[in-house]
């Protein structure tokens, strides 16, 4: 495990940065077909689809902002979390040296870039023990532009007549998308958490971005909400890059968390079109890579 774990993490970083998952590429192609020919929106999507292929072929990061690398790792009970974290840190440093990641870690007080992609609480590693002998790793790279338009609202909010119910959630989410315009590199994908406290709301919302884009929410109420928000957001006319157009969002994924009686948060993790995930499993000393998450299956 001493060798295989950092090696697997490094390959996951390379894959996430350079090789867009097929489900995301497919919705980009669908979006390109929807936009009217000759528009700036259509031209932008054409360039992005070309960029996806170039990044994959040349093994170069498709976006220069390789983001925060956030990990969700399920591991056996007899395995040290400290060892896993240090493997992730070592892999991050190697990935920066190899040009798969940008040195993206800046001291928030001094302004000094650490130069190696690591720093305080950076990268982000969520660990969870499970009663199995193998490891399941999921990775998300999410850049700063779309992180900056991610948002949390506390309901009720009288300015948009949003109460503490699913209709209020719908109103809050549509407002967040309208405010984001093209600044988060639309067309975007939303991870939504309804409830929780402020911190768990953001964590759970971000984790929703691991879901394959065509999956169906097992909760029928949330499945309907996802569908409705996707359709309505795409009537806003923000379009790719905020140029105007038919595709403002590529997908919406929602989850709920219990909350305090006093709190009702709606949290949106906005991802740019470049939804960069990688997934792997390490079993009996061997790594297998997958294009869809392991995390939401077989749990």
């Amino acid at each position, binding site marked *: 495990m001493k060798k295989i774990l950092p090696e697997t993490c490094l390959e996951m970083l390379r894959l996430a940065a350079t090789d867009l998952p097929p489900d995301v590429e497919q919705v980009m192609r669908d979006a390109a077909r929807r936009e009217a020919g000759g528009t*700036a929106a259509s*031209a*932008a999507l054409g*360039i*992005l689809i*070309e*960029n996806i292929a*170039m*990044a994959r072929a*040349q093994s*170069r*990061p*498709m*976006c*220069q*902002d*390789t983001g925060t690398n956030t990990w969700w790792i399920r591991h056996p009970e007899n395995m040290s979390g400290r060892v896993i974290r240090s493997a992730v840190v070592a892999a991050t440093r190697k990935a920066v040296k190899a*040009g798969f*990641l*940008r*040195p*993206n870690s*800046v001291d928030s007080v001094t*302004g*000094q*870039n650490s*130069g190696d992609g690591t720093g305080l609480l950076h990268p982000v590693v969520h660990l969870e023990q499970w009663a199995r002998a193998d490891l399941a790793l999921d990775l998300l790279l999410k850049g*700063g*532009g779309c992180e*900056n338009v991610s948002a949390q609202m506390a309901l009720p909010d009288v300015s*948009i*007549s949003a109460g503490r119910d699913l209709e209020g959630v719908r*109103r809050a989410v*549509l*407002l967040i998308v*309208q405010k984001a*315009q*093209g*600044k*988060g*590199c639309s067309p975007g994908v939303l991870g939504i958490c309804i409830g929780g406290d402020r911190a768990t709301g953001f964590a759970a919302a971000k984790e929703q971005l691991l879901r394959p884009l065509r999956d169906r929410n097992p909760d029928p109420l949330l499945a309907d909400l996802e569908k409705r928000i996707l359709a*309505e957001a795409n*009537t*806003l*006319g*923000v*379009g790719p*890059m*905020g*140029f*105007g157009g038919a595709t403002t969002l590529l997908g919406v994924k929602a989850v709920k968390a219990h909350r305090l009686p006093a709190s009702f948060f709606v949290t949106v993790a906005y991802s*740019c*079109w*470049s939804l960069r995930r990688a997934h792997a499993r390490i079993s009996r000393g061997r790594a297998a890579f997958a294009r869809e998450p392991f995390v939401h299956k077989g749990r």
Partner: protein
Amino acid sequence: MKRIDVPMDEKTVRGLAVGDEVSLHGVIVTARDAGHKIMIEKRPDIVRPHLAGGVIYHCGPIMLERDGAWCAISAGPTTSIREEPYEASVIAEYGVRAVIGKGGMGEKTLAALKTLGAVYLHAVGGAAVYLAGFVRSVPGVYMLEELGVPEAFWLFEVDGFPAVVTMDASGRSLHADVAGRSAKVFDSLLGN
């Protein structure tokens, strides 16, 4: 597609309108958050010769040194609105004629574009390998040690770098138009 040679004069800039597709040729300068803060607080002269009639590119690239020369691996635009507090003054101070970025900028910058004769050019966000392909060479870099790779002032010699005019020197902004229209749709979705 209109060809733009850098540096450019005011007449060229005033001839551009929202919606025009352009291709840039010449040396452009990357600058983002730390760079803009420094250009206002310290007004460094090192970038001055490259910015007179020149182009600022909001970009924090991935760079690798190969055989002693810097190479742009991945170099798309970063979100421009963060530079809104600085950009109008930077354009005035350095005589910048074009700013490339993504997501558009606000009213203060739009007013400066009109008064001073400059344009905002939108490059495709996330198309970083594609756009790096238009960087022919990297003739220099400033403040690399102090600012780190993403924030340093990189000189990019570009050949045909593509962008679209989304804010022009007549005071028009595509971003303001789209935001206004989408706000109306939002209101109707809420039943207002």
